[in-house]
């Protein structure tokens, strides 16, 4: 893989829900076509570390990144204006493995939803289950529909869609699908992995605090056990962020 950190032009910065922003950034020399599940490492003025953000959508010369304001870095990003330049290292990591002619169920929880949009675009008629805490945080439902997905929305408090968890829906639909791809909080991923175990293949996208973003500094460790391999400390930025759920030890 060839890496390049390049200047992108911020084309759009829209607030799409409470504290959640959608960027479109453009660069005519995108170093490689992104795969779904990969991420971008965004340089933020005044910060030592870059901010890893999943690729929500991509084409030949643009990336869409959807992020939630958490701390100072994402706050600065949320205030940037279209026309400004931003340096981004992308695409990084190992994305979802999507195969033709399979029925996919894509599951996103909270700010884990964005990467599932680009993933949905690679699948034929996927079922997309998204879960949010409350209606003010619901994002990307129209985008999923436009991508041809069947969508099921859940909220923890019942303020929009089904009152309940994504796992309740998954259990009902398990018979109709071939594979699951999921991104979201660890307890959600663990529950999904438990439901899928022995029935359907499940891939999960993990988060870990990062330094270099390319596999050199070993700070983004995750204990994994590859099929037929030895247990080892893998790097989420390089071996992940997407793993086969059976490879991962979900301890917090």
């Amino acid at each position: 893989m060839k890496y390049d950190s390049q200047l992108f032009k911020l084309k759009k910065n829209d607030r799409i829900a409470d504290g959640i922003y959608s960027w479109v950034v453009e660069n005519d020399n995108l170093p490689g076509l992104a795969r779904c599940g990969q991420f971008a490492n965004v340089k933020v003025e005044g910060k030592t570390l870059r901010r890893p953000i999943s690729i929500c959508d991509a084409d030949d010369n643009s990336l869409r990144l959807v992020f939630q304001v958490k701390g100072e870095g994402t706050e600065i990003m949320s205030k940037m204006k279209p026309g400004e330049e931003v340096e981004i290292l992308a695409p990084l990591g190992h994305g979802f493995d999507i195969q033709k002619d399979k029925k996919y169920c894509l599951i996103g929880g909270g700010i884990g939803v964005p990467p599932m949009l680009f993933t949905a675009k690679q699948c034929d008629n996927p079922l997309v289950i998204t879960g949010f805490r409350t209606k003010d945080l619901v994002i990307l439902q129209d985008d999923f529909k436009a991508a041809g997905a069947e969508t099921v929305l859940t909220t923890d408090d019942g303020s929009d869609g089904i009152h309940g968890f994504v796992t309740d829906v998954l259990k009902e639909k398990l018979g109709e699908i071939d594979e699951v791809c999921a991104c979201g909080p660890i307890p959600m991923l663990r529950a999904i992995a438990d439901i899928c175990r022995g029935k359907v293949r499940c891939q999960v996208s993990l988060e870990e605090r990062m330094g270099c973003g390319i596999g050199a500094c070993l700070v983004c460790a995750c204990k994994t056990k590859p099929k037929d391999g030895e247990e080892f400390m893998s790097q989420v930025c390089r071996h992940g962020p997407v793993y086969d759920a059976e490879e991962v030890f979900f301890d917090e």
Partner: protein
Amino acid sequence: MSDLSVKICGVEFGNPLIAASGTFGFGREFAEFYPLSVLGGISCKGITLKPREGNPPPRIAETEGGILNAVGLQNPGVDHFIEKDLPWLKEQNTRIIANIAGNTQEDYCAMAEKLSDSDVDFVELNISCPNVKSGGVQFGTSCESVGAITDAVKRHCKKPLMVKLSPNVTDIAEIAKSAEYNGADVISMINTLTGMRIDINSKRPIIRNNTGGLSGAAVFPVAVRMIWQVYNAVKIPIVGMGGVSKWQDAVEMLMAGASALQIGTVLFNDPYAPVKINEGISKFMDENGIKNISDITGTVIPW
């Protein structure tokens, strides 16, 4: 045209910038950005006699102007390094420094012996890693222990020996003198300063190891001060590091007394930093009529 090359213990580096241990792995990832020959050298990830898994995550936290890390010396072991990484590294047209850490004096000596028969250009003795329970730093915090380990390793090491000092000490000049007296060929400094960050919502330290090593721009003035003190105390060359982020920092650290530099944390922000810093140094030299890097070393005029 200014000449960026530097010679340390008779070994020529194409330019004064060396990748700092632990921030650059064994070079393969950064080689996807540029030929590694843009660097004068690479100090490889710290290796131990046997492979190590390292600490559980999170291993990094950000702080104003820097980061804390506690990787805990995750590495594949010295034999793997010599067999699998070194042959490739030697083809990259840059100098290779093996950074070694151990639990016991015997570990260090055994590794030095193995590396003596390999193609590495230097052995860097890491007696300053703050992130592992036993090993590393306890060898690096008193004159006696630094002297003893330097002396022992020197007897087993046919390569020029670089001793990497910890800044977590009261009098770094005394420690440097002890390393020099006991056979160190070069001093490299500084390793990270022990620090801590706490998440005020969970009351948990951000790093799983609770504490971690501080690096990046925040430590730069501390590093400059310590390098200057050591420069005034020893005759052997110093490879300086700690927070170098731009070419001005590089020149400043050379003036304090460094003969060459290592850069680490800045690479996470800007992988192209070595290219940019070298360009800046070169321009500075041209504008000031400086022919060699060594003509900058130690030129500070203290009050």
